[in-house]
Structure formats: C-alpha cells, structure tokens
C-alpha cells in the first residue's frame, strides 16, 4: 500500500512493515558471504529514502542529489584519512552536518526556481562539487580517490571486521533510525503539507502555507540523510572516489527509486534491492547489456508501469480483491 500520510491515514506500523528488517536479519545470518553487497543495499535504501522525500513526496525533481551523498562521503573520508578522526559516529555526524549545511544553502537558493531551471541548477551544483573533488587532489585524492580511511570500532566496542559483519549491522541500525524518522515525517502534518504542495502548489499558497520555507526544510532534511548515507558508504568501503558524485550514479539512484515506486516509502526499499542484486549478478556476466537493460526498463516503466514494482503489486492485489 501507499504510505501517503495525511489527516485520514492510520499512522500505526503494520505488520508487513517489519518484513524488510526480518529479511535483513535473515540475510545477516544465512548469507554471510554477501554482507558487503548487503551493506551496499542498506546504504542505497537510505539514500533512496532521502530522494523519495523530495522527489516522491515534495515533488522536487532533481538530478543532483549525489551532491549531498558525495559531500557526506568525502567529509567522512577526509576526516578519517587526513584529519585523523577515526570515531565512526563523529565521522557520520560530520557527514550529516555537511549534508545539512550544503542542503540548506543550495536549497534556499534553488528552490526559488522550478522546472528545467531547477533541474539545471541541481546539475550545476553537482558539477561544481565534482570539479572541486577532481582538482583539490591533495585533499580528496582527485581521480584516484581517497584511501587510507580509518574507522575505529563503533562505540569503542564493535570493530569493523573483514567479513563485513559489523559494517552490515552498523548500516542496518543507521537505516532503521533513518527509516523511522522519515516515516514519522511523512505521517506528520508537515508531511501532509508536502503532499499538498506536490498535488496542487497553487492551492497551498492560497491556504497560507509558507511553501518555499517548507520546501527548503524538507530539502535540508533530505540532504542530511543523503550525507549520512554517503558517510556510511565511505566507512564501509574505507575508500571514497569521484564516482560518488557522478551523474551516472545519480541516474542509477533515480532508476532504483522509480523501479521500486516513488512516493511510498517502501519503493525505496524494493528498488535498490532488486537493482543491486541484479547488478551484482548480471553486470558481471553481461556488462554491455546491463545499461541497455536498465535504460530499456526505465523507458518501459515510464510508458507502461509508472508506479514501479510496488505499483504493479498494488494493481495485481487490486485485481485479486475485485475478483473475490
């Protein structure tokens, strides 16, 4: 079902919503060889959730969300590799703060525009960051990336092991908190006003809503979460490179979210799971066909299945309900 929030919605957590967590824990115990892929999925779910907040709920179309992910990733990396800050929670807090700061500054600037101009500005901002990351290579490692990222044990107790167990559970915990926060926001009055703005911005102005400031606020929250996801990415890979800021990866995130279904929370779960697992298997076997497949799928989704996987599931369930 769609979690659209609002004043008529029931905000209590339904039992199917616990499934993703059970699946994650099951994966932890049953598939110990795939924990690094698992951590990657968890990070991208968090990243996709942050994008869904602004894209699916607030209706802000952006191709530059990687700016905040990338900034968070680099801030965590630079702190770890260059400034000797090895505590993971401090690194993560810094990544969050960086995301928030960039989010509020850029949001306040670009959300005065809309449509293609807004899209263009999101691209321009990411391009600026890419150039900086590329050129300031004594800080960022430039095109070679930044290795030597040191991550101390979490809370002084849980050391990051080579099997990726700690990393996985660490990401899971962060994702859990992030998910819980996003869900609360969506069901709150603020979340209802986001939906209202997406549905009919004219009307929101006419009922006295300070639309611009609300957009800036949700954009900042989203950028913060994306920054956290970026920080996690650096910590689990112990490396950060230019690809965190690339347009290709921003496009991939968009694909993941659309694949799962926008504006419904769990699309951000389903999408990355399908995409990253498929990519892990198929891209290795048939690399040329991977992008072809993704592109074709995107075109087909837009033309025939706008709600993504969960949209199809909804439609099927509705058909079944009609029959019985």
């Amino acid at each position, binding site marked *: 079902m769609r979690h659209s929030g609002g004043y008529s919605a029931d905000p209590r957590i339904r039992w199917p919503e616990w499934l993703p967590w059970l699946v994650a824990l099951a994966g932890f115990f049953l598939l110990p060889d795939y924990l690094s892929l698992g951590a990657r999925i968890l990070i991208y779910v968090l990243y996709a959730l942050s994008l869904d907040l602004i894209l699916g709920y607030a209706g802000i179309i952006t191709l530059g969300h990687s700016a905040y992910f990338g900034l968070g990733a680099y801030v965590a990396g630079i702190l770890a590799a260059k400034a000797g800050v090895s505590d993971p929670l401090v690194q993560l807090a810094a990544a969050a703060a960086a995301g928030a700061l960039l989010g509020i500054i850029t949001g306040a600037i670009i959300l005065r525009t809309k449509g293609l101009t807004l899209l*263009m500005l999101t691209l*321009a901002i990411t391009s600026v960051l890419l*150039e900086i990351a590329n050129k300031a290579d004594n800080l960022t490692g430039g095109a070679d990336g930044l290795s030597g990222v040191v991550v101390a044990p979490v809370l002084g107790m849980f050391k990051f092991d080579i099997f990726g167990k700690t990393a996985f559970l660490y990401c899971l915990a962060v994702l859990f908190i992030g998910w819980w926060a996003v869900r609360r926001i969506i069901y709150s009055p603020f979340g209802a006003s986001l939906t209202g703005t997406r549905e009919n911005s004219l009307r929101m102005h006419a009922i006295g809503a300070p639309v611009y400031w609300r957009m800036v606020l949700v954009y900042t929250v989203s950028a913060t979460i994306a920054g956290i996801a970026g920080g996690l990415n650096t910590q689990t890979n112990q490396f950060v490179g230019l690809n965190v800021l690339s347009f290709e990866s921003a496009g991939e995130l*968009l694909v993941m979210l659309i694949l799962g279904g926008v504006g419904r929370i769990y699309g951000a779960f389903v999408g990355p799971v399908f995409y990253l697992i498929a990519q892990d298997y198929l891209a290795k076997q048939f690399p040329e066909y991977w992008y072809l497949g993704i592109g074709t799928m995107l075109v087909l989704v837009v033309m025939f299945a706008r709600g993504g996987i969960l949209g199809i599931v909804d439609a099927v369930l509705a058909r079944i309900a009609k029959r019985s």
Partner: protein
Amino acid sequence: MESLVPSIVSVAFHGAALGMVLYVISVGLSVTLGLMGFANLAHGVFAMAGGYILTTAISRFGVPFPLALALAFVGVAVGSVFLERLLYSRLYTASDLEQVLFTIGLIFIAVAVARFIYGTLQQPVVLPRYLTGQFSLLGRDFPTYRVFIIVFSAAIVALLWFGVERTRWGAMVRAAVDNRAMAQSIGINTKRLFTLTFALGSGLAGLGGALGAEIIAIQPTYPFENLVYFLVVVSVGGLGSLRGPFVAALIIGVADTACKYWLPQFGAFPIYLATIGVLLWRPMGLFGRRV
C-alpha cells in the same frame, strides 16, 4: 611567457569555435523545449550519433568529408523521426518527472549501444587534407579546421534564422512556441510541425556533433558528460529562443576555453558558478520568455 593580446585572440578564436559547435548542437533542444515543452535530456545522444556516423563513414567506408557531414545530418534527422513518432510523441502530455526519466532511459540505452558497437575509446577524427594545417588571416595563423567550423556554422545559423523568419514553417514554429493552443485552433497541424521541427533540431545536433568531433570527443559517455553544457546553453540562453542560446553558447565557449587556458586548476568550475548566478538572476534565461 606569451604576450597577452595574441593569447586573447587565440582564446577568443577557439572559444568561438567551441561556442558555434555548442550552438548548432543545442539550438534543436531549445526549440523542442519551447515548442513542445518537452525536456529532452537525451539530446546529446543525437549529437553523439552524428559524430559516430561521421567517423564511421570516413574511417570505415572512406566517404569524403562533406558527404559524411551531410550523412550525419540526414541520418540523425531520419532516425529521430522514428523515435519521435514511436516514443516521444506519447509523452508530450506526461509529467516533468516522466519526461526526465524517459530521456535518461534513452541515454542509458544509447550509451550501452555505443559502447557495444564502438568500445569505450574516443573516436579518432580523420580530417581531409584541405582542412588540416594552418590558415593565415591578418598576419596570424589559425588552425584551418577551426576556421572552417566557425564559417560553416555561421552559414548554418544564418540559414536557420532566415528559415525561421521567412518561411511558412518558421512562422508556424514561432506561433506555436508563443501559444500552442492558439496555434492549434487556427489550424496548424501541430503533430506534423513537431515531428518536422524535432527532426530538424536533432539533425542539427547530429551535424554539430559531427562538426565538433575534434573538440568534443565522441565516446559512449558523450550524452552524460556534455549534458550539462547543452542544458546550460539552453537554460541560460532562454528556452524556445533562437538568438538567446547563440549568445549563451558563444559566451560559454569563450569562457570555458579561457578558464581551461588561464585557470586550469579550476577547470569548468567558474562556468557552473556563473550559470547558477545567471539562472538565479534570470530564471527564464537571458533571452527567454515565461514558459
């Protein structure tokens, strides 16, 4: 250390060449946006296709350069007609998000196909003998090919502007850009107009891509790498405008060349900042009308 004036002239010259190429490629995008309200982010695919047609025709089939250029234009234009009729036209009324997603999907497909056929390396451009070397003008030597680019593009631009101002087609385009519903109600067949204009814009992109293959390298990631430039030209110049992107393209061409020459440690960074500045000051572009 080179004295300033010659290097300024050189930068201006190379910048103008780049700017002309950018304009020829991007003008189609501007018109499509103004005419159909469709944000075709995959526009770079057409430029790339033109570049591949040119290099393949010359390297593999020994086609003479002028013919190869013409092939680039015609081939991409015809191909785009199929794309427009089959896919694009279904999405004219779709939401912004869907249009963006669709065109990104097209980019992914094009990148994959290009990589599959041509591999990941840049396509080498083999120019005909008469276009290589230096060209003497006012006591200075300029690369002949760049001179050719500027002159040829200027001719195309003049032809295009003349066509839009003087022909019936041009009048219909201007009317429809101004007010689509009104144009329809006075009997303009907007469907055919769209297809024709789309083909022309895409053909020009192909031609620009082919023409500029030496300056903007033809490789599979072309549509991603250069998307920002094309969008900057159009959004700074003004959607739906013809002159605006011309000015914008020249400014960006010169600015980009200047930055890469004098401030190489910054790369294209100043361009992006300037774009942000311009768009905040004038969200509809320097010459744009309210969309």
